[in-house]
């Protein structure tokens, strides 16, 4: 009974809100006009490509036909993708790539941020040095690492042999088992400075008086970190992890330049595979279907990102 009453009493409120909303929009029409150009641009450069990609994903695009002569095949591209062994291999690679790169880069960045938060001689220089991998061009870094890893004459392998760790030059990127971990190392090297910067900024917001108070109360270093510092970094950590995850899902340069997705698809991740399907093999329809699936995943991540941001804001305002 209570429920029914509640619903009945809620309905008029809901109906009554609609005119208010429209009236409010009308009263704020000038504001909408101000943002209209931006909305139009967004529709053209984001909404239309999304619509077109979804539309294209239902068509077959053989190499001998122009795109305008594409053939409607319904959801065949999706079923072909999901039944393809390459898809599952590439998906597994993508999950490993994203999770490993994101988590390890975050942990290393966290450690570096904590270390550099303390005041010591040479801190500024060290901070600048650690940022270098992030500011260096990804293309240049990929070529450099390709030679560092070179399976015949790579510097890294040569040093390992010289130091007696190995008998012969290790095979980093020409082996199906070691290529993905090797590329992940390069990606982590590129990304951990980003996590470090984000978390260093977060550390600035931890109230010094709280840390001092905890110390006066006899809290150990670990207890101060766990009960004071870490809770303050939860918001920035969530955002950092989400941004890293999104960037890693969309990674292209490192695997494409270093291995082209090989050997034997062992380092193909979604983006490189989509690129190859579209631009190397002209399977525009299949590539579009892949992109739609990736888009859905990115939207889910985006939802959590927005939620994390909103949570931070409400905490700041609510506190």
């Amino acid at each position: 009974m209570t429920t029914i009453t509640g619903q009945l009493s809620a309905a008029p409120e809901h109906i009554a809100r609609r005119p208010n909303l429209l009236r409010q929009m009308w009263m704020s029409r000038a504001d909408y006009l101000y943002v209209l150009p931006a909305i139009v641009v967004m529709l053209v450069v984001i909404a239309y490509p999304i619509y077109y990609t979804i539309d294209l994903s239902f068509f077959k695009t053989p190499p001998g036909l122009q795109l305008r002569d594409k053939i409607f095949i319904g959801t065949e591209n999706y079923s072909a993708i999901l039944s393809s062994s390459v898809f599952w291999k590439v998906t597994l690679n993508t999950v490993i790539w994203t999770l490993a790169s994101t988590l390890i880069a975050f942990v290393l960045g966290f450690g570096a941020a904590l270390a550099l938060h303390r005041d010591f001689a040479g801190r500024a220089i060290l901070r600048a040095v650690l940022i270098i991998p992030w500011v260096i061009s990804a293309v240049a870094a990929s070529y450099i690492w390709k030679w560092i890893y070179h399976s015949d004459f790579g510097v890294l392998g040569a040093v390992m042999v010289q130091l007696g760790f190995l008998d012969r030059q290790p095979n980093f990127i020409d082996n199906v088992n070691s290529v993905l971990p090797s590329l992940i190392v390069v990606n982590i090297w590129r990304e951990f400075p980003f996590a470090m910067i984000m978390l260093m900024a977060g550390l600035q917001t931890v109230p010094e008086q709280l840390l001092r108070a905890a110390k006066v109360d006899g809290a150990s270093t670990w207890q101060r970190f766990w009960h004071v510092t870490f809770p303050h970094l939860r918001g920035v950590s969530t955002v950092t992890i989400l941004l890293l995850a999104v960037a890693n899902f969309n990674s292209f340069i490192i695997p494409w330049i270093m291995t082209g997705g090989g050997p034997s698809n062992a380092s193909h991740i979604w983006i490189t595979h989509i690129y190859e399907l579209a631009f190397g093999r002209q399977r525009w329809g299949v590539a579009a279907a892949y992109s739609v699936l990736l888009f859905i995943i990115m939207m889910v991540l985006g939802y959590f990102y927005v939620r994390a941001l909103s949570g931070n804001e409400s905490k700041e305002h609510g506190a």
Partner: protein
Amino acid sequence: MSKYPLGRALVRGAFVSALAVSMMSTTVLGQSVDLSQWSPEYVRSIAGTETYNTAEQCGAVTPLDYEGKLTFWYQGVFEGDPDLLRQYYKDFFEAFRATYPNIDLQEQALTYNDLLDKFRTALLGNAGPMVVRLQILGGVEFASKGYLQELSPEDVGWKTEDFWPGAMKSVMWEGKAYGVPTNNETMAFIWNADIFERAGLDPERPPATWDEVVEYSKTIHDKLGIAGYGLVARKNAGNTPYRFMPQLWAYGGGVFDEADPNPTYGEVRLDSPESIRALQASYDMYVRDQSVPVSALTNQQADNQPLFLGGQVAMMISHPSDYNVMLDLQAKATGADKETAQTVIDNMRYGLIPTGPDGRRAVVFGGSNIHILNPEYVEGGEVDEAAAKAMVCFWTSPEWSLKMAYAGSNPGNLNGFKTEWMKERLENIKFLDVTTSMLPYGVPFPTLPETPEIMNIIIPDMLQNALTGAMTVEEAAADAAQKVRDVTDGGGL
């Protein structure tokens, strides 16, 4: 007693004759260069016998005072090319602008591996250039889709007979021509005589067959601990099919019947016993003997060049221009590296590409073609026909088709062989005789829209699947054959 069995010699003779006939086709009688006499001696005998005036000849196609605008994309020089070629490219555009001062030329150079992708993308947005110079395997794909205008040598003042018949095949789609060949080349076999000697091999005798390449590679690796043969198996790189297809054809295999005199491309042969044998040879070198660079799966030829110069690779397949590349690289080396490089250059030898077990010798008939686009796919929706033809005429002239192919290729216009610059080239470019001798063995890539995908993705995938152990040799060949069937049927992932 004869050194070689009579049957083998007959098969070899028949195959070479068939290939030569295929290359020369029915136009041989009308050609200004007699391809039936093709030999290094014949090439030397015609070099420097004619003079041509490019401005005058192209002026008859497009008046020299013509005012217009032209956008042009081309496969330009890249890191693996010699400095000499860079200079010729620079000279070409200066000469064009001097000859046609009123044509506003906007040219853009792209590397071999980027050009097709970028061109395809531009066409999707109707933002292509007016004229494009594409690698030989690209033209049919775009002609079949209607992107290119019909264009024959006659449209720009030349005769079809002035071009290699095999090259003309590469611009034909459904009986019509859609481009003009700019340059055509065949690669050769390169070896380091010093390494051969140190490994106990005859330094002046290259391997005669692909089976011998496998043996030599193992011998060199076992004795000296360096790579024998410079295998290349990178994906999405043109270098891979250019090096594997000669091996595949020599063993009697093929993607289709493209090595036959009159190919129909009806039957997929990648999983034939002959093709499997060719793939097995690569497997034997990479996996069984470990006698080739481990980095072969990520290497391109540009990566092999410094390895060869450093004395770490004994044999490879490449252009005559690799000799000039070695000279350029050596000039940049310092200290002991410079001496090592000089030793390699002094011991660099060129020979014919090895044959298969029954004497088949084959090489990719490579090169590039120049095309004019249909206006609807061009940025702005218009093609300046006169300016476009001026560019096509200029590049395919005897003078510039020779100069632009000075170090790494051969003139698409056969009259280029008669120019004074060809005579000069024969004196300056070492080993040119060997690569021109390989021309009659050239096999054009299949003239199908699917060829770029087959050559740049399916063939390297097959190699990588076998060499990494992801599949057995037989499985990799069967997988690749099925992919080709799927692609040509319009399906497949």
